[in-house]
């Protein structure tokens, strides 16, 4: 009986000779990640447990990306706690100020996470790195503290669901639309405790940026991780970034899956997740007349340069509707710089967009784009729960960068085809 890619990566981080779903294992961690919201609790726990030294200063990443640039005094204090810890333990991958980006865009960009790695992060969207063929999963702060102490953490080996995605995707359809459609099909607990493995001819041609968007939202179906078998596209992405060895794993032909789901992606149009669940998904043509007050393009789901290029293509020589606040947040400083060099920022400014610093702030209703009661936003982010971006009576509609840009121009949820 063969193994899935997830089982193989987990096993490679233990001394075990075989592994099966449901098994409890202790596995070595390659990278342990925390941010300005989750790391302070982990640091408190680390110290309470008598921690004097992190297991490896090269394998801990601390990224101050959520409530930064510091939104208030309390947030500044939280950042200070993490900064002092990073200095004390000489953490190599510590990022803030002009070096900080949204963690799940930043770590792959810098080659800190690589194929075959086992990554844990005190942030639920840590599953993003599955796009590289790594096993990556979100945990809490206590787990992060344990991993920082020992470099080892317990895991229950998950069952896997295999998605076979075929068909040529239409213009303006992206990885974001594929994952929204999948979550719409299986529900927000459709992959609870399981691994989502994305395969098929559509996936084999899918660019890295789209794979990151898809793996990013595996948690929105309750999954432990989302994963893609690394290939030539992965290799091209990491070849200039990797500074240490990495390994490509693939599922065996006779690997066992709890479920196999086939999807014809050729039939899909851009998707919209209505409030207040990411599974509340419709095709954009069925959205009806939904007037919006804000459009946010950014986040760990869709703040990459490819996302900004799509938005710029649509926003070029156009303007956001007068009643719409268009906010564009490049996810990392490098993406910001690229957007500047490619002339995208000028297009955005001419479209009356606000260009935000790299930050998670607006996505989770922290700062840099909060909604008032009764307001509606389209957002290229990953969650549309009650109160996610501000007032509990505000609404968030999850979309791709193409739909977010077209909606900003028309002032209502719209497909780029309508322009």
């Amino acid at each position: 009986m063969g193994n899935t890619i997830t089982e193989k990566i987990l096993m490679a981080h233990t001394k075990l000779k075989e592994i099966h779903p449901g098994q409890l294992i202790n596995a070595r961690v390659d990278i342990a990640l925390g941010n300005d919201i989750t790391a302070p609790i982990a640091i408190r726990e680390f110290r309470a447990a008598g921690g004097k030294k992190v297991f490896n200063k090269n394998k801990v990443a601390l990224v101050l990306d959520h409530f930064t640039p510091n939104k208030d005094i309390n947030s500044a204090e939280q950042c200070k706690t993490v900064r002092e810890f990073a200095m004390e333990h000489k953490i190599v991958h510590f990022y803030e100020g002009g070096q900080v980006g949204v963690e799940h865009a930043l770590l792959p960009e810098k080659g800190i996470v690589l194929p075959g790695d086992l990554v844990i992060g005190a942030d639920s969207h840590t599953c993003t790195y599955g796009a590289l063929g790594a096993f990556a999963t979100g945990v809490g702060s206590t787990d992060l503290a344990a991993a920082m102490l020992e470099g080892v953490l317990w895991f229950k080996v998950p069952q896997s669901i295999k998605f076979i995605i075929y068909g040529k995707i239409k213009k303006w359809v992206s990885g974001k639309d594929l994952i929204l459609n999948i979550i719409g099909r299986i529900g927000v607990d459709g992959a609870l405790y399981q691994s989502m493995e994305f395969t098929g001819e559509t996936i084999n041609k899918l660019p890295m940026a789209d794979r990151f968007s898809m793996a990013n939202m595996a948690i929105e179906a309750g999954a432990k991780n989302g994963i893609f078998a690394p290939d030539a596209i992965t290799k091209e992405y990491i070849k200039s970034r990797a500074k240490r060895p990495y390994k490509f794993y693939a599922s065996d032909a006779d690997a066992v899956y709890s479920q196999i789901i086939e999807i014809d992606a050729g039939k899909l149009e851009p998707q919209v997740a209505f409030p207040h669940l990411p599974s509340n998904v419709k095709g954009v043509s069925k959205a009806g007349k939904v007037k919006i007050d804000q459009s946010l393009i950014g986040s760990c789901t869709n703040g990459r340069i490819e996302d900004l290029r799509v938005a710029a293509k649509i926003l070029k020589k156009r303007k956001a509707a007068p009643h719409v606040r268009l906010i564009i947040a490049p996810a990392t400083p490098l993406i910001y710089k690229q957007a500047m060099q490619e002339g995208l920022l000028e297009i955005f400014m001419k479209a009356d967009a606000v260009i935000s610093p790299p930050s998670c702030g607006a996505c989770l209703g922290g700062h840099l784009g909060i909604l008032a009661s009764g307001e509606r936003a389209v957002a290229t982010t990953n969650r549309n729960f009650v109160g996610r971006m501000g007032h509990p009576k505000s609404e968030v509609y999850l979309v791709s960068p193409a739909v977010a840009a077209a909606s900003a121009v028309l002032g209502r949820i719209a497909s780029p085809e309508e322009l």
Partner: protein
Amino acid sequence: MHFSGKVWKFGDNIDTDAIIPARYLNTSDPKELALHCMEDADPDFMKIMKPGDIIIGGENFGCGSSREHAPIAIKAAGISCVVAKSFARIFYRNSFNMGLPIFESRELFDNVAEGEEINIDSVKGIISISGKQKTFSINPIPPFMEQLIADGGLLKHIAKK
């Protein structure tokens, strides 16, 4: 462990933004977080609940963010334990790691009304409703998780090793 308390019922997919909205995450002080426990699911919850009360959830309780602030807020609010049809993965892990007792029972939800008092015997794995005959079984806690609780959480478990 034994718990008795009045029940507050919530539905399916109670997410961590409802349990503790991100706008309050500029602190990790349990007392501060407790002030806003369940605020976006029920703005009056902290005014009406009493220490020792029990939260009942439907499917996928605690979905969304990995924020440990969610079980911390519930525990610091004085809620004695949470019973749900099912729990989201990270919330489940966090609760054991930081010591919030949680129990899975698919049956209880449809048979209990808000305001009723329930009694949980976690050793026998049984839940009863005060004044009623019928009892409900708790899904067994995996032995490893029991060990975590017995040791006082993940870090104490590691220290013991």
